[in-house]
């Protein structure tokens, strides 16, 4: 019989702990109106402002785990020096791991806090950096 009453008491405690949550403030964040502010989020890749400092070394291409996301095309400059023509990153393939942004010698690739970059067309997801 004692076990029977212990069960009843534990049921009542269970009811009241659930009931006590009625008074607590709900924790839901109403997403589109109020957004959580992110200070240190590895979000969308973008290029540093100002003059393009990229030297087309290809380190970011060799370090990226998902192959084929970063494509670099170079062209001949007047002193037959290899110079960057165009650097394109396919954001639909990028897994936001941050390898390229860390190992870029001239810090042209940076990780912003933006994570809502969906688009209806795959072409918009390819960002380009021209010389």
């Amino acid at each position: 019989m004692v076990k029977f009453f212990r069960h009843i008491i534990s049921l009542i405690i269970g009811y009241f702990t659930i009931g006590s949550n009625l008074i607590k403030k709900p924790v839901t964040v109403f997403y589109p109106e109020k957004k959580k502010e992110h200070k240190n989020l590895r979000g969308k890749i973008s290029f540093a402002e100002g003059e393009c400092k990229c030297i087309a070394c290809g380190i970011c291409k060799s370090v990226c785990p998902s192959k084929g996301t970063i494509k670099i095309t170079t062209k001949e400059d007047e002193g037959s020096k290899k110079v960057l023509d165009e650097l394109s990153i396919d954001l639909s393939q990028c897994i936001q791991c941050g390898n390229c942004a860390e190992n870029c010698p001239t810090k042209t690739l940076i990780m912003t806090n933006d994570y809502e970059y969906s688009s209806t067309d795959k072409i918009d997801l390819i960002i380009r950096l021209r010389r």
Partner: protein
Amino acid sequence: MNKTLKNTFQLNIGPQHPSTHGVLRCIEELDGERIKSLDFVVGYLHRGMEKMAENMTCLQYLPVVDRVDYLSGFFCSQAYLSAIETSLNFELPKKAQYIRVLTMELNRISSHLLWLASFLMDLGATSPYFYCFRERESILDIFENITGARMMYNYYTFGGVKSDISAEILDKIAEFLDEFPSHVKEYENIITNNPIFLDRTKEIGVISLKQAQNFGLTGVNLRASGSKADLRKDKPYLIYSELDFDVPFSIYGDAYTRYQMRIREMLESRKIALQCIEWLRKNISDDKVNLNINSKTVKIDEGLTIGSVEAPRGEIMCWLWGNGTNTPERVKWRTPSFYALQVLPEIMKGKMYSDLMSAFGSLDVIMPEVDR
């Protein structure tokens, strides 16, 4: 006539089913409510982790490693990196080791919380699901401030960790850990001696010690059946030898004890994390967090090294065959859920059909680890 008429009833808990954690197909012979035989079909989530490692360099493979077991990303990268670090015999700086242990123990709490949420949802109690996720959300916010990502961290590198933990993040972690026991008490009030929960989990899915060892179980599933095997105590890696914590174990081996073990293990991890925070607060000044090796030119020399770590679900082992270049010859992942799933057909013969849900839930099996 009755030879053709099989009086069993073949039920197919298909890949799309609410209570298989991930994608798993289970073909069952049911005789009324009793399970006659059970057969698992796995491989729906096979991403070819081991083939990927063979044509990626060590640095490229680092972000992929978090995805072997996406609920405990830190543990998989620690297993992979300890394999590389022992083969190149790096000596990690003290602060990097403390940060690694702190993040791993927080990850253990968040993975156990998610297990508790889905285990109770399988049994029908819907409301503790949201309390567990409220706690898990605060842990993931802490991870986002430290590493920049919520689940795919890519925070460990070859000589330590990528960035330091600032003082106010340490305060935030300490504040979370202080109010954590009151939350655990809240779950205990609702569940632990709730008669219906006791009915559903006592003496269900009992695994004897001999069976557990014969099937290669590790982690909480083994410790609930009576053995004290914990990698953090038997083969202490990183700085576990300096921390004092005890390993909960018991002898009954049924679903209820596994539930109790995981609750106590969460509280143990909280004790470890508090000690790490206290040490980190003492020497906040020294900022040597990694050996800043040029991680692009890390070469693994010949031969086999094994890195193993005590993950929330058991022991994750990473076998690494090097061949002198910076791409490994072969990487093999030994993951605990692969063996936990083998036990189920053995222990569920002749049991009720709804016991399968609670036994399967209590073993904490998730499919990315099984299929790799």
